[in-house]
Each structure stands twice: as C-alpha cells, then as structure tokens.
C-alpha cells in the first residue's frame, strides 16, 4: 500500500516538474501557413483562455503570428488620447477582452471597417509603448470583413 502511494506521489512530482520546466517553451511550433496561434480553430474556452494569456503574458507572444475572428470596435483610450482599433474575439463568458491591431503601411482611418463589423485578421504580435503605457497590438496587413 505504501509502495502504491509512493508511486503515485512520484508521478505527481514528475508532472509538476514537467509543468514547471515548460515556462520557457511557449507555442513554438509554427502552425500551418506560418500561423502560430490560430484562434479561429480553437474551441470557445480555449479562445477565451488564450486571449487572456496573450494579454497577461504578452512577452511570450511577441513576434508570433496570430489569427483571430471577432467584432471590430474602436475603443477610445483617454490615457493616450486616441482610438485603439480593436478586435473583440468571440468567446464565452463575460468580460470580452479586446486586442488592438494596427494596419501596416501608413493606413488611414477610412481603411478600418465600421464599428460592429465581423472581421477576421492575421498579424504579428508586438508590444509598444505610448505615453508611459505598455500596449500590446497586432500588426496586420489587411482586414477581412465578413458579412
């Protein structure tokens, strides 16, 4: 009996080590077509959890290509005095978490879709700093508007 419980104990310690060591090893394998994180292919709870992870640990996703689908919403952020063009990724539960994206190549306001449109975007994740705020965002080549 003692032996069995000892074995179980060892198993858990191994699992724990495994989880601990993996801190440095985030989603490294690039997926299909160079997309590292394809939120459009995730289940609802994974979408929610991944978005939270992206926003809580942005350093781990810097440089990764992320694809997402959601609702476009320009959110005014007083701290930096401008609108942040954000995608609110469709996910269950409360409190939708918006991710900002910026169109590359000197885009104008008119290049962004109308508020509330369903969009799909794919871009590289990065972190910027404005007026003392650390702001993560996706750099996106273009926005696909779905009707």
């Amino acid at each position: 009996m003692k032996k069995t419980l000892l074995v179980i104990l060892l198993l858990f310690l191994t699992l724990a080590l495994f989880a601990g060591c993996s801190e440095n090893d985030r989603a490294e394998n690039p997926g299909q077509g160079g997309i590292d994180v394809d939120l459009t292919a995730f289940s609802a709870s994974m979408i929610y959890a991944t978005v939270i992870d992206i926003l809580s640990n942005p350093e781990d996703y810097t440089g990764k290509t992320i694809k997402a689908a959601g609702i476009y919403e320009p959110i005014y952020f007083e701290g930096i005095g401008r609108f942040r063009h954000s995608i609110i990724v469709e996910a269950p539960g409360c409190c939708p978490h918006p991710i900002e994206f910026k169109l590359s190549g000197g885009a104008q306001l008119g290049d962004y879709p109308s508020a509330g449109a369903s969009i799909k975007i794919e871009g590289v994740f990065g972190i910027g700093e404005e007026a003392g705020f650390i702001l993560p965002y996706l750099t996106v080549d273009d926005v696909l508007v779905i009707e």
Partner: protein
Amino acid sequence: MIDRLIMYFEFPFVRYAMLVGILIAFCSSLLGVTLVLKRFSFIGNGLSNVAFCATAVGAAIGFNNNILFVLPITIVSAVLLLCSGKNAKIKGDASLAMISVGSLAIGYLLMNVFPQSSNLAGDVCTTLFGSTAILTLGQRTWMVWLCVGLSVLVAVLFLLFYHKIFAITFDEDFAVATGIKAKAYNLLLAVVVAVIIALAMNLVGALLVSALVVFPALTAMRLFKSFKSVTICSVIVSVVCAAFGILVSILFDNLPVGSTIVAVNIAGFGIFSLIGVILRR
C-alpha cells in the same frame, strides 16, 4: 482531435490546468473516502458556500488577495463543523444545512450591496459554477505551486496517518477508548479539507466541489471491499475523470470545466455500478 490536443498542450496554461485539475482531484478523493464514511458528504457544499460568503465579505471590505481572507474563515468553519462531533447541540446535518444556506444568502446579499463589477450575475455564476479560471492559471502561477505543495503535503499526511484515519473513521469511540488522540486527527482532517475546498472552489465552482469529494469514493465502493482498495481506486477514478473531463471540456464548445468533470464522474459511477451488478450474478 489528437492533433488539436497536442497543439493545445503546447500552451503552458493548458498544462497548468491539467496539473492543477489532477492534483485537486487527487486530494479531494483521498479525503472523500473518510468524509463519505463519516456521513459528512455534504461538507464540500457547506464549506464552499462559506468560502463564497467569505469572498463576498472580503470584496466588500476591499481585500485584494482573496485567498488569504477566505482560507482562515473556511478553516475555522471546517473545524467547527467537523470537530463538534457528538457534543454539538445541533446535530451534524442540520448545522451543516444552516451554515450552508445561510452563507450563500449572506454572500449573495453582500455581492448585491457591494458589487465588484458591472456584471453581478456573471460574478455570482462564476463563483458558484466555476469558470474558465482553471485555464487562466498562466497569470497566477503561484496557485499552481500552491496546489503542488498542498498535494504533496496531503499525500504525506495520508501515508503517515493512514491507520489512524481508518480507526477514527470506522469507530471513533473505540479509537478514543484505546488511547488514540482522535480529536487531533479530526482537527487535522478539518483543516486539510478546508484548504482543499478553498482552492477547488476557485476552479470548479462552489456548488460542484462536493461532487469531487463524494463521487470517486462512492464509485470505488461499488466494486471494492477493503478500505485500502477503496482508497486507491477512489484516487485513480477521480484523477482519470478529472483529466478526461478537462480534455473534453477544452476540445468542445459550451462545456464548462466543472460540470463536465462532474458529468464524467457520474458516468464513472454508472459504469462501476453496472460492473458491480454484473459481477454479483
């Protein structure tokens, strides 16, 4: 599907969720055997409602780190409930019912009077039924380490005091009469139960914690006949069901983690009961 799972598992927060889920299942099933046999099956519910109330109180008075506030209160309640034993003026299940419903009501009242966010219903629902909180442990890795530490502690304590736990579960009077310090062991049990419930509540929700404590033990008892085999089986069943529940829940939409794990446990109970009936023929 397997490919998807492998891809999901590249994310650390998924690995944490699996680890923590398994560890909590491990701890609660170990204690579940004793609690069920001592006829305290509803303790999970009672204590987690107290924890819910404590969370509401903590939020109302502005506490940031909830667990430091919730834990002592839960421990005290556990001690009061489990250690009053035969001396209590109000017997076991009645006192549990009072505390259970009372704290739920007060907790909800406080959450309405001092709302913490604009989404009151969501907050309440989350606390009661759990949420995807188990999947967002990437922001709170301290919780993962806490769970690991706690599991090791529970396993060690259980190993050390196995025979004494058996004695006070089977026949507390006899144990006391032959000189075993039953009161001390009951106290230990109460404290450990409280800690596990305070943690488990965060992940599967207050209303479902009882299931984690109760189902594996009952499932094991369908088929196994000695205390040792029931305990071991209970742990294995609990861990397997939790792991499977988490996997299923992250693969498919609209399957909240807590309820999925309980559903898998129910299926497990059904299967074992069926096997038990067949074997008895």
